[in-house]
């Protein structure tokens, strides 16, 4: 994580009219639609060439759990889309360590490679954004 990417990068962003977008995912998947529809915004944001970061904390970490099989519930399994993010150059995926641990999970349980950050680091990351969209 480049906590502070310096004045040079900031200037470049301003010139290109690029903002730092942070999508904060805090809800479990399926019980509510927020995770699925959040992902739709994230995919669209890729087309705008912005500086996009995704953070998963609280129950949001559960969105990335491996092995989702929705058939019997009748709902659509949207989890493969997380694997597609890389193809859209959305590569900054951060997951909160404490949230994982509290839910008995580790990074090995997740379906995409992520960077695990502490609460403190997530707090710092939030501070550096221009736009925060929370679900």
């Amino acid at each position, binding site marked *: 994580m480049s906590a502070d990417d310096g004045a040079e990068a900031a200037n470049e962003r301003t010139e290109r009219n690029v903002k730092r977008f942070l999508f904060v995912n805090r*809800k*479990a*998947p*399926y*019980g*509510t639609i927020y995770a699925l529809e959040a992902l739709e915004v994230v995919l669209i944001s890729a087309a705008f060439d912005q500086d996009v970061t995704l953070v998963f904390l*609280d*129950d949001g970490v*559960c969105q990335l*759990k*491996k*092995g*989702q*099989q*929705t*058939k*019997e*519930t009748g*709902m659509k*399994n949207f*989890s493969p889309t997380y694997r597609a993010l890389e193809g859209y150059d959305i590569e900054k995926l951060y997951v909160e360590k404490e949230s994982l*641990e*509290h*839910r*008995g999970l580790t990074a090995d349980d997740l*379906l995409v490679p992520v960077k695990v950050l502490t609460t403190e680091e997530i707090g710092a990351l939030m501070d550096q954004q221009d736009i925060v969209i929370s679900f």
Partner: protein
Amino acid sequence: MTILHTINKSPFQTTDLDSCLRHARKGSAILLIEDAVYAAMGNTGISERVGEALKNTNVYVLGPDLDARGLERERVVRGVEIVDYGGFVDLAVEHDHVQAWV
């Protein structure tokens, strides 16, 4: 009379499970559905509380909702019984009434 209590919200996000556990009487049943199925998993910050609940109440979890969320059935807390929708129906039949902690 015995009650089937249903809970559908994540135990990490809301206090619904807590409230249900405080009110559920000995011999009643608790069924975890939707986002409440996380409460059935072992090695979490709340597994112990669910283990406590098992002493007085029967705890069930909806298998299809575990599967949807990628939660391995073998990681479910010992003593919690996994049911499908048919099992949910049976539980509703077997108890005198159903009370949702929505």
